[in-house]
Each structure stands twice: as C-alpha cells, then as structure tokens.
C-alpha cells in the first residue's frame, strides 16, 4: 500500500528544490496533525491535582483582576450598558486564544526537535496542531462567558451567529506571526525571549481590559494596525450586539494586517523549514 504516494512519479530531492506537493502532503499528514493535537490534550492536565478545573480558574481570575483594576479602580467606561465584567471577558476570550496560540506554536517547533531530526513530515503540522489545545481552553472560557451572561441576564443578538468567523480570524491573526517566530526561533533562540514579552505587553496595548472606544477617534485608524483591535471589537460586537458597534474602516485595516502577516509567516516558514533538521 502507498497512501502517501499514489502516483508513480519518483520523488526528487535536490538543493533548493521547491516542493510543489507540499500542500497536498500537508493534507495527507492530517492524521499526524490530529494525533499530535490529541497527545497535547491528553497530557495537558496529567499529574495535576485539580486537572481540567485549571481551564476554568485561569480565565476567571484574570477577568476578576481586570474588572477590578480597569473598571473599579481606573473607572474606565464600559461599552453601552454592558456590565464591565462581561465586556472584559468578551475581550479576554479572543486575546487568550491569540496569546496561547502565539506562544505555544512559536515554541512548538524547537519543542519537537526529537521528531524533526528523525522523521520527515511537513513541519507546519507541528505549530498548527497546537491550535487544538488553545481551542479547547477557549471553549471552556466560552462556557464561563455563557454563565456570566446568564448571571447578568443578558441575551445576545443575532450577531452571535457570526462568532465562529471571528474565532477563525483570531486564529489566523495568531498563526501568521507564530509560524514566523517558530522558524526564527529555530535559528535564533533570542526570539523565545521576545514572544512572552510581546504577549505581556500586548494584553495592555490591545483593548482587553478596556473598550477600544476609550482611544480618541483620530487615533482609531492607527490603533487598528494592531490586528487584535479588529478581532476583539468583532468579538464584543457579536456578544454585546448593538451596545458595541464596530468601527469598520479600522476593522478593514486589521484584516489587511492579518492577511499580510499570514502570507509572510507562511512564506518565511516554508523557506526555512527544509534546513530545520540541520540547525535545530
């Protein structure tokens, strides 16, 4: 049997040869994607006392801290009539998804050095498979949000149906820089110190603990260069509905930035992945 090579053409290995079968190969290795993702999920809470409860505790505590610091102490305004806690949580959801994909995926390649130096597979499988763990944590947080909205008696509007689209957008926003960073970390370990820094600063630069409406109008366009501004605004619009209208021109800027980073990340990763085994 030869599920990986149905056509009988020989495989040619040469220096710098572009592998036009790459994307087909990536699809053929989807089982590896699932099994690596499953492995990460299966071992995630092994040998912890409270196990999967950690998935609830972390986002909940962050939400409480942000609500107290930005809402009660700094007295920043919420969006429309929405309770501050719900507004924070609606921003925290996409941010956490973004940050965990960015940090996990960027470190995943050097973390899999033992695989990369011993077996062939499209290397993109490794960073992509980290998405699944982040998505599962995201779903847990979504359940907390539902509970929170029930508590405040909030009912989402029709916009909630568009939420999956923005989840996808958050993932795309993370994957671009993540795979770029992953390929850089293989060569220069400096970047493994830079990524945690980016996520630490990013949570304050992005409108996570506050509403993006706090930023003066004439800065909105510039602010949207941070792609997470568009994504977080989109999330709040989906969850809080009419209380949180999207600033569309800014959203478009965010979309363009996401697309450019994704294309650049994929290009950089593809260009350097053939040498991964030599320099990892």
């Amino acid at each position: 049997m030869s599920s990986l090579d149905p056509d009988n053409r020989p495989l040619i290995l040469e220096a710098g040869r572009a592998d036009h079968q790459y994307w087909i190969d990536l699809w053929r290795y989807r089982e590896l994607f699932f099994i690596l993702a499953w492995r990460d999920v299966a071992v995630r809470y092994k040998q912890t006392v409270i196990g999967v409860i950690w998935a609830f505790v972390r986002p909940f505590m962050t939400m409480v801290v942000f609500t107290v610091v930005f809402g009660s102490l700094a007295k920043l305004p919420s969006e429309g009539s929405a309770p501050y806690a719900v507004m924070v949580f609606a921003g925290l959801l996409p941010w956490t998804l973004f940050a965990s994909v960015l940090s996990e995926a960027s470190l995943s390649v050097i973390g899999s050095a033992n695989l990369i130096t011993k077996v062939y597979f499209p290397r993109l499988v490794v960073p992509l498979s980290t998405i699944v763990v982040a998505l599962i944590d995201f779903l847990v947080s979504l359940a907390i949000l539902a509970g929170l909205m029930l508590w405040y008696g909030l009912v989402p509007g029709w916009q909630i149906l568009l939420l999956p689209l923005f989840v996808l957008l958050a993932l795309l926003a993370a994957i671009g820089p993540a795979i770029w960073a992953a390929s850089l970390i293989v060569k220069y370990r400096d970047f493994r110190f830079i990524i945690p820094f980016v996520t630490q600063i990013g949570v304050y630069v992005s409108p996570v603990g506050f509403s993006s409406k706090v930023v003066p109008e004439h800065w909105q366009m510039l602010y949207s260069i941070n792609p997470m501004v568009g994504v977080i605004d989109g999330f709040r619009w989906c969850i809080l509905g009419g209380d949180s209208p999207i600033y569309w021109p800014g959203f478009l800027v965010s979309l363009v930035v996401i697309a450019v980073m994704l294309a650049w990340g994929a290009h950089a990763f593809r260009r350097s992945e053939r040498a991964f085994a030599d320099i990892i």
Partner: protein
Amino acid sequence: MSDVAIRAEKLGKKFIIGHRAEVGSVFVDVVARGFRNALRKGTDMLRGRAMVEGDTVEEFWALRDVDFEIKRGEVVSIIGHNGAGKTTLLKILSRITEPSEGRLSIKGRVASLLEVGTGFHPELTGRENVFLNGAILGMTRAEVRRRFDEIIDFSGVEKFIDTPVKRYSVGMYARLAFAVAAHLESEVLVIDEVLAVGDAEFQARCLNRMSAVADAGRTVLFVSHNLAAVTALTKRAIVFQSGRVYFDGAIDEAVAHYATSLRKVKNGGNWGKGNTTSLISAMLVDASGTPTDRYEPGTPLRLRVVLETSGLRGMSLELVLRDEHNLPIGFYSTSVFNQVSLPGKPGQYECSLVLEPYWLASGEYCFDLMTGLTYVDTDHRVDNALRFFVERCSPDAIPFNFSQGKGNGALAMRLASPVEFTELPAAAQEPKPGPG
C-alpha cells in the same frame, strides 16, 4: 530503467561548523572575542543565515560526490565508521534534511527508522504510544488498528499495554518501539542501527523480521556496525569513508574493504582540538601490529593513540571502555594508575597501550578517549573514538558464545582457583525455629 528504486547523483551535504580559537584567557581577549562573535552572529542574522557558535567558522562536507543506484527489491547495507557520512545519507534519503548539491531520486514511499520510539510520550500508555508512533512514522490510524494485535504480539508487552510507558523497563520500551516500526509498510525501508535493542531472543526475532521484509521484495537500506548481521542480511554493501563512497559491491569484499578503510582513517576523522593537548587518531592493533576492529578475548588489548601535546606537565591520557548499551565498564588513566604523564616536550606522539587480557563478551564496544588532569579537568575528549567488536567469547572452551545480548554483562569472569564445595554439618541445615 524502471526498476531503479533509488538513484544518487553527485550527492553532497555541507555543514558550517565553528571552532574555538586557542587564544588565551586574558580578560581583554575574552571580551574582544565575545564582541567579535556577537558582531558576526548579528550580521549572519541580518542576512538570514543560520548562526554558528565558535570563533572561526569552516565548511565541512559530510557527504560529497556520492553516486549509486539501488534496484527495486535490493537489500543493501551501508557501512563505515563514525563520521563517514552514513547517517547524513540516511537523513537525506528520509527527507529530514536536504542535500547541498547533487540529486537523489526515489521511487515509492520511504519509511525510515533512524531511531526506535521516536515521539514516544512517557505519560501516555503503551497502546496510545503505538498509535502516536505509528502516525509519526507515516501510518494511518486504520493501518495501525488493523495491525495492532500483531504489533502487541510481536512486542510481548501485552500485559502492560495500558500502563504509561514511563513505568516500562528499558527493554520493554525498546521492544514496543521496534514492534511498531517492524510493521511499517512501504516500498523502501531505511534502517539505522535499530537492531541493537532488547535481549538476544528479541534481536533474533528482529533479524528474522528484517529478512522477511527483504524477502517480500522491498528495497531495504540497512546501516549497522554489526558486521555479522550485515553479512547475514545483505548481499551488497556500500562502504563510506570521509563522506565518499569507498567501495560498492559484494558484501564479503565490502567487509574486507571496511577493515582497510579503518586503517586509512588514521588522519581522516576530524576530532577537533583541546586547549593544550589534542587527540588525533586511535586504532586497535593485533599482536603483529596490524590495525583491526576485532578483539580476540583472552589476548592483550592493544591500542595505539596518536596525540599532540604542548608539553604541559601532569596531563594524563585516559580511556573509558563502553559496552554496546554505551554503559561504561572500564577506566584507565596513565597518571592515576601508573603515574605516567604525557611527554613534557611539545610535539606529536604515538602512544602504545597494551592492556591486560580480558574475557569480553561478544558484541560491540567502544573507547572514549580523554586527555586532561584526571578528575580535575578534561582538556580534549572524544566520545566513541574507537569502536571494535568481539566475535566470539568462549573462555575455557565452553561450548557456546557468551554474548552481551545474554543480559549478563560484558565480562566473562574466570576463576583464580578451582571451585570448592564444603559440606556443612547436618545441624547447621536445620531450619531456624519461627517466632512463636
């Protein structure tokens, strides 16, 4: 031409390696060197090149001008000593790394086993790891499921299949890992030294499995130091030396060429340098002084080590003998054991060491070589510097071959005087009264 499975044309692989310069450790020098290195790494990064640690960089060809053809269904072994380029070739074949020049064309799906148990996760159970490892080696889940019982049967760890593999013994772990690998289905199979796992019985089973695979008409490339296994399994061998094809042909001739290539390697291997002393080469010789890679148990173990010294006093030459599991089983130091230091006059020397006869079990061994101040500081260390084999170990003409694979260690112990049994008086044999 349709029956050629693998063809290599002018294949080469280049690495950039870094060296540490031998400048002194004066503070200013160290700072200047650190600054220069950071500058070089910085420019490398701006140009998008990979970074190399070290003070000076150099090109190193691990493989060069390699040409060969392997027909479909052929079973070929690749032999050569450490650093001859075997593993680099396998890595190119299995698409792990890309060649720097030349081309390689392969027909059919390649399954490569550069290691058993790649990606095994200690927290997962044996069953889970079979699926994980299978997927990593390129099997589909359906395929693994179909052959699952066979795999478990082959491994012999059925009882512990739902136990996390971190609780496994080394042997169980290796057996399970090999079992998965042995059930890979592909047109081309590439194997690197994976037979060296488990006990003798399991190794025999692995060998049978390998020959079954070969008989089934698949193309097999097999790298091993185990010349007995190589001779039993393959008819053709390619001998590598210093990154080039040294010989390509019938297995018997190849083994002979391999032995002569051992002699030639004297100055071929690049072992790097120490600060004040450098090990250059080492070989095992027989009673007549001819280089060999065989040791006849019960005869003196003769070594020749070529080294260079700057004349620093008190430096010692040291050996660590390791068995085939890479466990240290012996140590010798010229200065600690015999109060002999390296010569005080700078220059290159050949050092002859004749060690006492040992009854080493049959199998593979290697020596690590070191120079330095014993237990204080190692100046130059070369791991796996010298590999050799013991073909048969039968002290006192016992009727079987005592091998390392028996799991009883690497040394057949011998008596200094005959065994004696003295019968104890009957009273002493009475069972002691229990408490109560």
